[in-house]
């Protein structure tokens, strides 16, 4: 998989799988902690996404655990990796 395939819905699906929920249950602005995410699952996601070329920082994810915020961080990364892609 390449970074170009990295989408907000892909992130949503990864999150949903790791907390055993339906992706439809993961709203962009829902608190992912309320949905059952904890630090080890966040680390697992960071690892998985890192393998896809998107290196996210635990502290930054933790500060605001919503999909919308995470996607904005990921987008910034993707933009940095593929300038003017």
């Amino acid at each position, binding site marked *: 998989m390449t970074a170009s395939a990295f989408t907000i819905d892909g992130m949503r699906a990864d999150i949903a799988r790791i907390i*055993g929920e339906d992706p439809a249950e993961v709203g962009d602005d829902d608190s992912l*902690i309320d949905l059952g995410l904890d*630090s080890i699952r966040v*680390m697992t996601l960071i690892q998985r996404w890192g393998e896809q070329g998107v290196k996210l920082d635990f*502290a930054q994810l933790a500060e*605001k655990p919503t999909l919308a915020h995470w996607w904005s961080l990921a987008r910034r990364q993707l933009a940095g990796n593929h300038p003017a892609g």
Partner: protein
Amino acid sequence: MTAGQALPLTQAQEGLWFAQRLDPENPILNTGQIVTLRGPLDRAAFTAAVEQALNEAPALTVRFSEGPDGAEQIVGGHVFFRLNIVDLTGEADPLRSAHDFIDRDMARPRDPTCDPLATEELLILGPELHVWNQNIHHLVIDGYGTSLLNRRIAALYNETVTGVPDAGTAFGSFAELLAEDAAYRGSEREAKERAYWNELFADRPQVIGIAQGEATSAHTFHRFTLDFGPAVTRAVTARAHAAGLAWPDLVTTIAGAFVARHAGSAETVIGVPHMGRFGSVAARVPAMVMNVLPLRLAIDEDAPLDTLAAGVSRQLTRGRRFGRYRSEQLRRDLGLVGGERRLYGPLVNIMPFDMPFALHGIDSDLRVPGAGAVDDITFTVRADGAGETMRLELDTNPALYSLERTRQLGHRFVAFLEAASGNERLADTPTLSPDEAAQWRGVQTAADHAVEDTTLAALLARRAAAQPDAPALIDGDVRLTYAELERETSRFARQLRLAGVRHGDVVAVALPRSRHLVLALLASVRIGAAYLPLDPDHPRERIARIVESARPRVIVTTREASAALPDGAPLLIVGGGDDSSDMSASPFIDPTPTDAAYIIYTSGSTGAPKGVVIEHRAIVNRLLWMGEHYRIGVGDRILLKTPATFDVSVWEFFLPFITGAALVIAPPEAHKDPQALARLVRAHAVTTMHFVPSMLALFLDEPQARGLSIPRVFVSGEELPADLRDRFHTLIDGELHNLYGPTEAAVDVSYWPASRADRSRPVPIGHPVWNTRLYVLDARLRPVPAGVTGELYLAGRQLARGYLGQPELTAERFVPDPFFAGERMYRTGDLARLNDDGAVVYLGRTDHQVKLRGLRIELGEIETALMGAGTLAQAVVDARDDGTGSKRLVAYVVAKEGSAVDPAELRAHVASRVPDYMVPSAFVALDRLPLSANGKLDRKALPAPSFAATLGRPPETETERRVAALFADCLRIETATIAADDDFFALGGHSLLAAKLLKLLRDTWGQDLLGLGVIFTDPTVARLAARIDTARAATGARSVADDEGLAPLIRLNNGDDASALFCIHPAGGISWCYAGLARALAPGHGVYGIQARGLDAAAAEPESIDALAADYIGLIRQVHPRGPIHLAGWSVGGIIAHAMAVQLAEAGAPTGMLALLDAYPSDSWREQTDPSEDVALKALVQIAGSDVSELGGGELTRERVMRFLRDIGNPLGLLSDAALTGVLNVVAANNRLVRRHRHGRFPGTALYFRAALDHAGTSLTPQLWAPYIGALDIHDVPSLHAHLTGSEATALIAPVIARALRDRHII
């Protein structure tokens, strides 16, 4: 946020601030990190990185202070941050020097009000070897914060070294974090979270730890580290994966189950550290944020582990969602304040990933030497980044766990984790590790011993033939040799045969104690019949039921005793004169080893007596063991005093005649008469005898018993109190042996030498006798580890055949032995645990358990706690109906000779040792405990108590109520829980808090009303209130000295004055320093302080130390007119105490205890120059337990010293100017007097406590006293001279003094 700004503490900080203030000398809140750096470190870049990162973190540079509205933190309290570089390359062993440096650093307590709370050092060990030491107080950082700091430092370093810019490691705002914290307080969210936790814990289970004792952090902790290895790691992660769980949740569940196993309770609460950063700016702020989530567990071992772990996982998720609410706050909500009232027990901390500390080109190795308080035990499991290996770090509180126990628990936990990960249900996982299980099995065969497979009959015949002319029996004036005994036995046997008794029959014997009784038993076993003792004094109905169930061929009795027997029973009347039987042939018939030897009935829990059938081979094992183990034989005289219906009598009857000893028969009623027993022992030179412990206690009270020599005394039948053991050895010359065994296993199955040197508490029942196995098992028949309570099961040769005619009951109690195929084990119904040496400790009956308000209570545990008070001869606790249908605990106590029962003190004592729900509601003092016919406690005969007047009296007067409210304020506890007689110090107060209380009292009632000393002399609500009322009523002038607690004689505790201790002031003339010692010695011993009269500046200076000593003796005699005077003195106080002891000895007074606390003779003082005021001020600082260097340089003035003392919160800082002048005068005067003093000689032994950390390089040694003291008993205390009356040193000194006082008191 600006420098100098005072900010409130976060909720997370408040608890730690309080903990540090409670125990200012405790360094355990230093969180440390040591990183070994190998490679070409750019020191300049590293220095810049560390300094910049720390200067970016305002939370780390705050200083704390006690503001008008509570504690506050002052931003920028410590200015610019520096990395301290320490070059150790010149040291002989740089690595060792680095370790020493770090150990010292970790061991140094930080004062948050003045010390920098973050310190950083780079230790240079070589050109490419560095150690970075970081020490940050837990008040300002937590584990996650440390990792943020590490990340920042590494990024800054790498940026400089490689030019790669930092990618977003900048910290978030501390101000925002504080704002978030403030916004949370009083918010709707807080209310919601509080409601969640309060509901979850409304009916919380009792928190039981793995170890017994109070879980309050010590100053250090033990750590045991164990790598799991890939096999265990894979087992754990594979199981978690298969179950669809995160592995940390699985490990947490299994750790919880492990804790529950050790606590012996399926329900427990563990604490789970929670980083508390999600959804908060704190995710990027190095600060103290973490919380502990209480995790409530109900471990169902039969449920699939996956299901259990999934439930735990859900609870953890919910808990994290509500995880901002502080667990300290929850404790307060639930009223769980104080060491024993815990919200959670062990901590389980899973670190599923670490954030590596990576400096470019450097190989770094990070270690965490301390991460905060260890109240009980903390299981930390760390995984490496990839989750391929895991490591256990087990931290324990040294007050509760030995290092060895910590190591055992660590190995056992990892084995448990591995096994549980592979088993469907927890029930299938043993508690013991495979190594421990193998060792356990080895222990079970340790008592194997070859014993002849024979019968009592054969052994009796053999001994009779071997020594026909030796004395065998003494019954009053009648003496029989072995030959005569054999002839009489034979005659009796013939009579039995004539009465129709045959091999295999039962012969009941209802005879008073006499030689006829002995002969009846001997004759019965010699003809292959089992004897059945009946007590004619027992209720007729009981005897009838026994006779009906046992169907004896004949009942041997006397004419008088036969009245108690059922009508129509076949009787053989002894003493009827019919001895004309045929003498030609031997009447004896050899039984076989598996024939029954005797049948003894015991009372069953249902009330119906059960007949226990014991075979020859079982009792033969027991008797041959005893004869050989205790070397009993020819020349010994064994006293027969136990009723035949009690199985202890069996060895009294038979042991003499199989070992060659002689039997001395006590007259029928003598066993209840201590004086008669003492006379018998003396008259017949008895060498071996038995007591039930409660009877031994009465025997020792008998003046005629004292000083007797009895080579071997055996006790069994009840728990042997440790105090009784010790008392025995002060009064009787002989050995004391504690034996244990139920009737169902041939008298005794275990033994313990309760020798003079034995210090065990409680006294164990010990180790198994020959061919016997003792199992301590849990409810699923799994062996429990040492230290864990289980039920005692017995196996081996001595087990009874069963209950006569009751196969079902037999099958229920004698069950298949799961450890040795084909054998049985007997379920005793006794609770026990194993000591580390393998000795078994009896802990009471399983049916001695009661449940109150749903909580399981072992009455024996409360009894043990009561006995620990040292004032009781006996104690029994029972659960009694309080008249409203619910049960309450009642303690029945018998005071020791010379002691009085004080319910308030006993309550305080017990409350300090058991959870509050186990503290009896009533204390009933009895002259003696009611005993049943066979000498055991008769619970039914205990009187009903009155509950009314026994609960703590609530504060009544307005003054009392206000004082109680101030206590509550000071101690942060609920006012409603404080009774009028509650003691400030017993509730958790200490001298710093006393100063705070004084301030509150003065704010309420006026500045000049009270002095600090009052809080030490009158520490209860009622007494303080009375002092306040008196002082307010008094119009006349009172001397300053009295007001400030500076009177010449002050009472420092409320202990027993019979063995009071008088403590002589050190150089400053004030004795408050002994307050800690006084608390430690209460209630057993009263403690008084003697203070210098010169504290009143108007008083004249004494002429000499000898004049002082005479004056002080006079003071003491006013409150303690007679008896020995026990003295202690620290420093100069020791010199004066010695002078007093010399004068007392010269006057012929009885010798008291003399304890010197690091005092040195005056000779060593004379070498020093005469003191100036400067020296006196220095001495004052030292008296306060501080060092002059802490004031900084410059001239010492009274003003500076007083300000310093007030700043550090020392009580001396509260002295008035007049009193301070008095103190300085006293210091100077004492200095002069000591120089002039010439010591006399005290002929006795003095206890000496040496401040072992001091005096290196000086000539000061205790031996300097040699010319002036008969003998010295020297105890090294790891303390500085200045800290010798501090809490740490007191904890070591007080028990030694208590023992010395107790010893003198007994003799």
